[in-house]
C-alpha cells in the first residue's frame, strides 16, 4: 500500500494577503514581507499587530499584510510608531522602511526612537538606492555607484560615504537587538527570518528598540538581471555592509528560536 497522507509544509501565512505583487521581478521586498508575515504567524501576533508603512517602494506594504496598518509620512514611521505604541503598549508595533526613508529624511526619527528605547521593531530594507522615485542616490549608495542623481558615480568627496545604520544604532543604549542580514540566497534568507523573529521577541519581552537591516536587491534601478542583482548584493554590498550581530541583549542571546 502506498501512503496517501500528505503533510502541508509550505503555504501562505495567515498574515499575508492573497494579492498580486506590485514589486518588480527580482526585487526582494516580497521575500522580506513574507518573512515578517511568517514570524508574526508563528508568534501568534497578527491580531494585535499594527504595522507602519513608509514612503518608498513599500508605501503599499499594507496591501500585503493581513493586519491593522497605518501609512506614515516619509521618514516619520518611527515617530508614528512611537505615538501608537505609547497609547497601546500591549500591541505589537513595527515599521517597515527603506534606506531613503530611514537613513536620509528619517534619520532624526530613527535615531531618537532608538535613543528613547522605544519598544518597537524596525525592518530596514537597504538596497543602496531610491527605488520609487526611479533610482536616485541614497545615503547607502556605494562609492562610485551610478544612479540618476550620481550619474558619474557616487563621489565620496562631495556626497560622502555610505552610512552604516546597524553599526550606528548599536551604539545606542536604548537598542536591544540590532543586526544586519542579507536576502541574496536561501541560507541568508533563513538567517534573516531568525533575526526578524528575535527582533519581535525583543519587543514582546519589552527589551526596547529592535532593528533588522536587510541587504536587498533592486534589479530595475541597478539595471541588472535578477540573478546579477543578487550577486551584486553578495559581492559588492556585503563588503561595505558587513553582515552580523551588532547588538544583542543578553536575554535574547540565550533564546532558542
Amino acid at each position: 500500500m502506498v501512503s496517501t497522507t500528505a503533510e502541508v509544509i509550505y503555504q501562505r501565512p495567515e498574515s499575508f494577503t492573497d494579492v498580486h505583487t506590485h514589486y518588480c521581478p527580482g526585487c526582494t521586498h516580497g521575500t522580506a514581507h513574507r518573512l515578517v508575515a511568517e514570524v508574526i504567524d508563528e508568534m501568534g501576533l497578527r491580531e494585535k499587530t499594527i504595522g507602519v508603512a513608509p514612503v518608498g517602494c513599500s508605501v503599499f506594504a499594507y496591501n500585503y499584510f493581513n493586519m491593522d496598518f497605518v501609512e506614515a509620512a516619509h521618514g516619520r514611521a518611527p515617530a508614528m510608531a512611537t505615538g501608537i505604541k505609547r497609547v497601546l503598549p500591549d500591541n505589537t508595533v513595527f515599521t517597515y522602511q527603506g534606506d531613503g526613508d530611514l537613513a536620509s529624511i528619517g534619520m532624526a526619527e530613527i535615531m531618537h526612537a532608538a535613543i528613547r528605547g522605544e519598544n518597537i521593531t524596525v525592518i530596514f530594507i537597504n538596497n543602496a538606492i531610491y527605488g520609487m522615485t526611479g533610482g536616485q542616490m541614497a545615503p547607502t549608495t556605494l562609492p562610485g555607484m551610478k544612479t540618476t542623481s550620481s550619474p558619474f558615480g557616487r563621489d565620496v568627496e562631495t556626497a560622502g560615504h555610505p552610512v552604516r545604520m546597524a553599526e550606528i544604532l548599536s551604539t545606542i543604549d536604548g537598542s536591544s537587538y540590532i543586526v544586519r542580514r542579507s536576502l541574496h540566497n536561501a541560507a541568508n534568507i533563513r538567517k534573516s527570518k531568525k533575526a526578524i523573529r528575535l527582533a519581535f521577541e525583543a519587543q514582546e519581552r519589552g527589551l526596547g528598540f529592535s532593528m533588522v537591516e536587510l541587504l536587498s536587491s533592486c534589479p530595475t534601478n541597478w539595471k541588472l538581471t535578477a540573478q546579477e542583482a543578487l550577486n551584486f548584493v553578495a559581492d559588492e554590498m556585503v563588503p561595505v555592509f558587513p553582515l552580523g550581530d551588532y547588538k544583542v541583549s543578553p536575554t535574547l542571546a540565550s533564546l532558542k528560536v
Partner: protein
Amino acid sequence: MVKEFLKGNHAFAEAAIRAGVEAFYGYPITPSTEFLEHMARRLPSLGRAFVQAESEVAAINMVYGAACTGKRVMTASSSPGVSLMMEGISYIAGTEVPAVIVNIMRGGPGLGNIAPSQGDYYQMVKGGGHGDYFPIVLAPASVQEGIDSIALAFDLAEKYRSIVHVIVDGNMGQMMEPAELPPMREIPKEVPDWAVAGAKGRDANILTSIYIAPEDEEVTNLRLLKRWKEIEKNEVLFDEYLVDDAEILVIGFGTAGRVASSAIRDAREEGIKAGLLRPITLAPFPSQRLVELTKQVKRILVVEMNSGMMLDDIMKIVQGEIPIEFYGRMGGVTPLPDEILGEIKRVAANKEPGAEDPRDEWISRLEQLISGEK
C-alpha cells in the same frame, strides 16, 4: 467648583487632561512651553502618555500615530514649531483622524520673537499644510474661554474626524486670571470602528492619506468639502458686545477683540455707538452674522495683531456694502485700549473713508505712531 488663579498654558493643559486627553507629544518652545511642562508633570501619574519629542516634526507624527488609534491626543506649540508640524497636519487631515493642536502664537516671520501675535491667521485658518482640507479653528479670548475651547475642540475633532486648531496669542498662554476648570471626564472605553488596535475578530483597518488614483483622491477631497459645509452650518461661534444699536462695528478675535471691548465701553461713555463682533470660530467664520450686521451698522473697524489677515476675509464677506477701516499692530505688539478708542473716535469722525484697501491709510497712521513712540 471654584475659580482659581490660573496661567493660560497650565489651564489649557489641565483642561485637556480633564477632557480625557490620553497622549501629549510636544517640543519646548516659548511662549507655549508651560503647556508641555504641565503635561510632563501630570500625565505619567495618570497612566497616560507623554513624550518630549526630538522635534515638532516628530511630535506631530506621534500625534498622527496615536490619532489613528482613536485615542484623544494633542500637541501644543508656538508659531515656528507649528510651521514644522504642517507636514503631519496635512497627513492627519488626509487620513481623516481627529487631533487637537494648540498654537500659542508669537511674532514672526522667521525666528521673530516671543511676544504675542496673531500673525499665523492665514497659516492656521487657511490650512497651512499642502492639499485640499479645512481645519476647524477656535480663537478664545480669555483663560476661561480657552479652557472651554479645549474640551469643545476634542468633541468637534471626534465628531467630524477633523483637525481642530486652538489658536491664541502669547498673552493668553502667559497671563494669569481667575477661571474655573471642569471636573475630570471619564475616558471612553470603546474603540472607534475605524481605528487601528489590532485586527481581532474583524477585517484589518488601514489608515492612510494616499489615494494613488486621482479619481479616488477627488472623492476624498469631495468628502472633506461636504463635511466642511456641515461644519460651516453647525459649528459657528461668536461673541457680541453692545451691537444692538451699534453704528460702528468693531471686529477682532482673541486678545485684540478683548482689548477692543474695553475701548468700546469707553467709546460708549463718550456717546459713540460702537459694538463688538468677536469670532470665536475663525473657521468656520461667522459670515452670516456679519452679513446681517452689515445691514445695520454704518462702518466697520477691524482690529488685529497682524497686518490685516482676517480683514481680507471680512472684505470678501462685506463686498463693499459699507466702509471698512483697519487698525493693526504687528511684530508682537499688543494694542492698548486707548489706541483702539482713538481709532473708534477717528472712524466716527471720518466722513469719507477713501482707500480701496483699508491698509493703505492705516500704514501711514502706523508709521506716524511708531515714530512718535520712539
